[in-house]
């Protein structure tokens, strides 16, 4: 309690940067002392203050892992990996945490369109694709403008290549928007409650499809009041309370 009061004082007394570094320091020293709960609390304050970094999520994941809070550990490792894809250390930690969860559903939720889009997104992020598409379209525009000022023979070639570039660019742009909409509709989430009953309808009286356990990866779709639709695999989906899972 006293420590919390000091932390709060620090929060009030220092400017944003000063307090954030001191909180990060105290989180690290708590972690070294084995006070994982305190460490996690400090890091959560940084997250609440809108700080983002892969390290921050990874350190928070470690603090939860040490407390044996596997759901939150997996959630934060996944968040860290999202910010820093392909980091081998992070992947190791995630694997260790995944080994501790009880549900043996496959890591990747298999859904034809979503899965292929997700794979594509891992190699070319939709923002990268957007820049490529926009550059193509800008090149095309420049080409067509230049053609206006050039001699007749050159003009025709410039117009043809400009129009085809523009075509490719527009196609790529449409695909980028499609890719983003698919990823926006299907957000990956992690089950945080020790066990969650997945209902067939957004009400607690409806039949139970399956019971999921802490740490399972699911796809979050649309929501209805305080319920959210989840997809477990290509075959099964259902509704759970929003509070029992969190988006990666």
């Amino acid at each position, binding site marked *: 309690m006293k420590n919390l009061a000091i932390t709060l004082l620090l929060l009030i007394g220092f400017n944003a940067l000063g307090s954030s570094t001191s909180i990060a320091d105290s989180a690290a020293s708590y972690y070294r002392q084995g006070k994982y709960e305190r460490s996690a609390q400090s890091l959560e304050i940084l997250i609440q203050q809108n700080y*983002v970094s892969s390290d*921050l999520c990874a350190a928070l994941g470690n603090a939860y892992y040490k407390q044996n809070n596997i759901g939150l550990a997996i959630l934060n490792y996944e968040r860290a990996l999202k910010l820093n894809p392909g980091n081998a250390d992070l992947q190791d930690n995630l694997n260790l945490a995944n080994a501790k969860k009880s549900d043996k559903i496959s890591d990747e939720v298999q859904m034809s369109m979503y899965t292929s889009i997700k794979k594509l997104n891992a190699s070319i992020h939709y923002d990268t694709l957007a820049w490529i598409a926009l550059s193509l379209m800008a090149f095309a*525009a420049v080409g067509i403008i230049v053609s206006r000022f050039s001699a007749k023979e050159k003009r025709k070639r410039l117009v043809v290549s400009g129009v085809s570039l523009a075509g490719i660019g527009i196609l790529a742009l449409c695909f980028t928007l499609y890719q983003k909409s698919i990823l926006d509709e299907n957000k990956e989430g992690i089950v945080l409650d020790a066990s969650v009953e997945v209902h067939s309808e957004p009400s607690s009286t409806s039949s139970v499809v399956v019971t999921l356990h802490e740490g399972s990866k699911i796809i979050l779709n649309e929501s209805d009041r305080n319920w959210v639709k989840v997809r477990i695999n290509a075959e099964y989906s259902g509704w759970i309370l929003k509070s029992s899972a969190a988006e990666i």
Partner: protein
Amino acid sequence: MHKLLVLIAIFFCLTGYAQQITIKAESNNPSPDVGDNFQISYVIESPSNLGNAKLVPKAVNGLRFLNDGRSTGYYSNWVNGKSSVKYQLTYTVAYQAEKAGEYNIAPLEIVIEGKTYKSNSVKIVVSAVDQSKIVRSEEYYLDITANKKSVYLGEPLSLTIKYYSQFNLSGLQINNEPEYNGFYKKDLASNGQSAVKTINGKQHVVGLYRQSLLIPIEAGTHHIPKLSGTISLVSQGFGFFQQTEERKIYSNTLSITVKPLPLSGQPTSFSGAVGNFSISAKVDKDHVKANDAISYKVIIKGSGNIKMTELPKIAFPADFEVYDPKISENISTDASGMSGQKTYEYILIPKHAGESKIAALEFSYFNPATAQYQKTSAPEIAISVDKGDGSAAGYVNKEDLKFAQKDIHYFAVNKELLHQGKTTPFTGSTLFWLLAILPQLAMIAIIVMKRERTYDAAALISSKNKNAAKIASKKLKVAEQHLQNKDNKAFYGAVLNALNSYLSDKFNIPLVNLNKQMIAEVLQTKGSSEQDIKECIVLLEKCEMAQYAPVNDVISDIYAKALAIITKIEA
């Protein structure tokens, strides 16, 4: 035929013989209460000894089979001057009534020489006993007491069952002693010496039935039900013949609350020890040569559920060979719980020279007295290992590296990379749409503007072409004025100017680019005759020359020629 008669005779003999076997079943108590014991006796009479016959007691759901036994005897009697010997086998089956209800115990079957004989069936009515309505007799009763009624999980308590009686008694049997589910039970004493005690002014015989140590292994409220039993009272008869009388005896009930261990403040090293402990560790020598054995002892000492304690994981140096420990216990159990010590002896063999450490051991336990978790620790032990004497000279045993089980990688928050604000995706942002639309708008705008400018230029040219003659005639009029003023030089200049600007406007050639060759070419393409072209060129040359030197020509001719050329071109 003869054979058949013999067979019939044998058959009748056998049936006659067989009919002499009788089985009678009887119960000593046809209407017992729940918890009572009763017996069914089967009396089997037969002309031959059936002492070894196979008899199977009947299993009845709701009656608990206790035991069975048999006894044999024989007697002879005289009937109508014939003597016959009868063997009697008494088979007794004891049951305990478990559930209230009506039971029909099926006939007992006995198979003799291929033929089955059956007894009668016995009807037993078991009536329920309403535990709450049983009034414990003031004169004789059982008393259950516990030294603690609210304990933490793992905290030992002792349970004592005593009997109290105002009469002398010769026997006590408890029929429904519970199984103490949720406890680890160890009996400490039973059937001790009885003593005489005065309670409320009356003398009682008080004796210990049983004392047990209970260690709770499940949290919750545990009820110990009312015990019921039978007591054999010795009536105060005269002298040698004493009569005993069986009576029912009941106890009080007891509930024991087992509190779960608090989750808050539970140390990670906690493994279920409840009580008060201390841990110590020692080695027999801390300076050895490689491959010499060291004895490492860890002792857990204290009181509580010491039998259930587990040693914390010991971090031995990786290149020590460690053998499974020898565990010895010296634990005494009494009404206050278990106490003593548990010793783990490890044999360690350091394989390589160097300074090694056996890490400090931390043992945590829950102390029910303070209701808090406490820690005890054994300090780190340093061991220095010298090089071995090389008795296995020239040969080095190569070993695989021993890796600990994989743990998570440490991550520190990099403060330089810490920044506020979530990155919003670029796709779909305002900048995205601006970059998508602006180049296209720019392209369209430029194309439109370019078209407008060329259109403007075209209009200018056509108007210039139309007005070329007008402008030329105006300029020639200036030349005419110069002619009247006799200013020859200015006249030639004006004519040259008029012609040049006419040709420039007419054929859309910038003035700077205008030269004679080009004029000749343009005029040719416009279909002017060779002579006209030549005249035009000559005229222009004359006018140019007149700018620098006086020309001997008829000035009015020049004027007329210039006019003629313009008129021809216009035509």
